[in-house]
């Protein structure tokens, strides 16, 4: 993959609210990725709270990497990486699956992904990096295990970016 290609077709999105405990992990990881990759010729790096906006945000991208907090019942701080782009299986059995699993008023990350799939709006490659959360309390910062997981989540994002849009 060339650097020029990454500049035009790669997107990194940190999904979540910075005000709701571990939900801030998406924006936090995206910010660190943005600092590491810089703005010159690197991927576009965004923070967003509205999963529905993803359908527009990743339009034209060969590769989109979305970082979000998840709750699967696993150990807080565990990092899960999932391929969800064109040609992958729907997210029916995943912890973030279903139209109401997260997202204000019933439109969560999985709903955005599956709606994009139904409308042929998925990027060629979409990588979801989920971080198992422990606390969602308004006004609190990242919990200790999730803060400790940020470097691993950043590494997972960078690895996906380096691999590019071809799986």
């Amino acid at each position: 993959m060339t650097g020029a290609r990454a500049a035009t077709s790669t997107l990194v999105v940190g999904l979540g609210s910075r005000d709701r405990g571990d939900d801030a992990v998406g924006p936090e990881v995206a910010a660190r990725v943005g600092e590491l990759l810089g703005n010159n010729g690197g991927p576009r790096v965004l923070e967003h709270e509205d999963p529905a906006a993803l359908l527009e945000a990743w339009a034209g991208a060969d590769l989109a990497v979305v970082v979000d907090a998840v709750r699967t019942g696993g150990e807080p701080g565990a990092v899960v990486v999932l391929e969800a782009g064109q040609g992958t299986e729907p997210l029916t059995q995943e912890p973030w699956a279903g139209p109401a699993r997260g997202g204000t008023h019933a439109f969560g990350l999985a709903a955005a992904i599956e709606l994009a799939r139904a409308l042929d709006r998925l990027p060629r490659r979409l990588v979801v990096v989920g971080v198992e959360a422990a606390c969602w309390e308004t006004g609190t910062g990242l919990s200790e295990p999730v803060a400790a997981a940020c470097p691993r989540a950043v590494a997972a994002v960078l690895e996906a970016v380096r691999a590019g849009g071809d799986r």
Partner: protein
Amino acid sequence: MTHKLTGDQVLQVDTLARVEGEGAMRVVVRDGEVTDVELRIYEPPRFFEAFLRGRAWTEPPDITARICGICPVAYQMSSCLAIETACGVTVPEEIRLMRRLLYCGEWLESHALHIFFLHAPDFLGYPSAIEMARDHREIVERGLRLKKAGNALMTLVGGRAVHPVNVRVGGFYRLPTRTELTALRPALQRGLDEAMQTVELVAGFDFPDMQQPYEYLSLRSAHGYPLESGSVVTTSGIAFPVAEFEQHVTEEHVSRSNALHAGLHGSPYVVGPLARYALCSDQLSPVAREAARTAGLGPECRNPFRSIVVRAVELVHAFDEALRIIDGWQGAPAPAVPVPASAGEGHGATEAPRGLLYHRYRIDDDGKILEAQIIPPTSQNQAGIEADLRSFVQPRLHLSHDELTRQCEQAIRNYDPCISCATHFLDLRVVRS
């Protein structure tokens, strides 16, 4: 006999990321008669009232915007009005107009999301917009375009599409230029056309028969169909200024719910699109009035299932109103006026997409907030939702639990409540004896 239709999912959703509440419903049937319906919901504003105390008078627009990702502008506008009233400041006309334009953006975002992605699947027989998109791609694409137009308006005027950062007590940090506003025209004009098609689409849905007997309550404003200002009116002819809101509306705690139940002189009442339409349809723009007439809406609509039609009419109005404000925009001398702290109490109410949102603040001479009161639309509608469900469930007790749950969720979604997310996981228990 107790039936539990959807497992224990409600227990799992209450603290999920960005979920705004949970919903559970309990129906008690004795000898074939529904004797009680309880809807249990959780709402976050209660915590916000507590931690607003001790904060500066300039902070409520930013703090309360965080209560909801769908209607942050409503929280910003009601809090600004209340604080400005407490400090004895009235913003200039240009700032009121720009607030109204921002509010149009929020209505577009919220109504498009609800109509196309949350409620239309109920009427067209799909579990969600995802399945609906496979058969009705153009409808879903249209919903995305309408929501995108609202996002663009929110981003330009509010600084970003979710939780706007450009609003301050006294006005804005920056006003958009005429050139920036005009650039939105094509998308808004197309949105207006597509909103009118949306009215036609949803007016053709099948609606269960149901008539609400309750009183409707909304703002009514000298500045047109109510959004950013007005005083309170009801369908029984009661009228009062916002400052007297708590003399007429009282909240009480009920043990089954974390949300307070509001009553108008002790009785259930309803806020939201049906109330606004019943009390202010004469103030809709001509094109929105014509859309309502074509859709077969009379001077008022009391079938809650047809609220989706009224929301679509309000979409038409919001697009038309946004275009009108942009076309007439002459600029403003300053983006904000000073609002120096002054000891006092102020009240503010505006029309959130799902109904009237009331704020009250008491501040001291230094601008420190001593007391905050927030009455959101969903808590005002909770008694009405329960009353709807009581009459709705009785003739449907023969249905399977899955089907009864689905229909109850649809009835709850008539209100576009802030528990929409959780009502997908409605935990319905029918207790028969």
